């Protein structure tokens, strides 16, 4: 079975985010008032082969925590987007 996965890499709340702060400061100039708490992260999509959804999630979490996020400053949220291919 092949599953599609979305990993969202986020900076920990207590880590300063200069990219987020810069985006937030730019918004009023574009006429967007009342937007705050901007945090910039990364989204990574990939496909994973696994016998079932639980295994797919476990494998994706391993990829996310071993490589995609640096646990010192980031955390990773992993979501299965769906089943792409099932054996007919």
């Amino acid at each position, binding site marked *: 079975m092949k599953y599609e996965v979305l990993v969202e890499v986020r900076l920990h709340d207590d880590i300063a985010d*200069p990219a987020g702060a810069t985006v937030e400061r730019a918004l009023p100039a574009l006429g967007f008032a009342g937007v705050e708490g901007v945090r910039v992260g990364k989204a990574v999509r990939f496909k994973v082969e696994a016998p079932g959804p639980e295994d797919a999630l476990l494998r994706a979490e391993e990829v996310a925590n071993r*490589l995609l996020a640096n646990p010192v*400053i980031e955390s990773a949220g992993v979501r299965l987007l769906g089943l792409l291919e099932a054996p007919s």
Partner: protein
Amino acid sequence: MSNRVAVVVFPGTNCEHDVVRALVGLGGQAELIWHDQASLDTYDSVVLPGGFAHGDYLRPGAIARFSPVMAAIERFAASGGPVLGICNGFQVLTEAGLLPGALHKNRGLRFLCETVEVEVASARSVLTSQVETGTRLMLPINHFEGCYTCDASTLQMLIAEERIVLRYVENPNGSIESIAGISNAAGNVVGLMPHPERACDPLTGSNDGSALMQAIAGISQMAAKS
């Protein structure tokens, strides 16, 4: 006899020749080695130079950490061998877990390319073994992700164990405690954001890096002066 220094080249490393030139200019011996090398048995010390290892994709050092040479560097460091990471090399060492903490985007989101004053905070490390604590050095910095970050307990440990090696006199990038360089507990693994190899010749504006690079080259200051 000076140390045989291995200067590690990843795809995207770009300061390796500066490091070799500085070490050889000081009377040392240095050789470039490719990142797929799995043994460091014939070397006395290792330098991970600056640049953009594996394109800095994902995060600086995130992919380089999985290069074959890293397992050899881990063994080399565990056996007490001197390991120096400069700039991107520092980022690689933190990603590999050989040094604690992480290097994050500079405060103000600015790429910094300037010569700054740093103060030697500990002479316990292999890099600073030939200089006194409190010595001030002019060294170039050249980075976007040089803001040193770690959790509170790690910071307490670094302070208590005198593992903060260098501090910026004026913090340019938002690093916690103005940290410019740290070491492991034993002091044989050191990472720093400034480039001492670019300050080893008066022609380049500062010769203050020489005392640091000599220590890596395994040349005593007395020998170098005579």
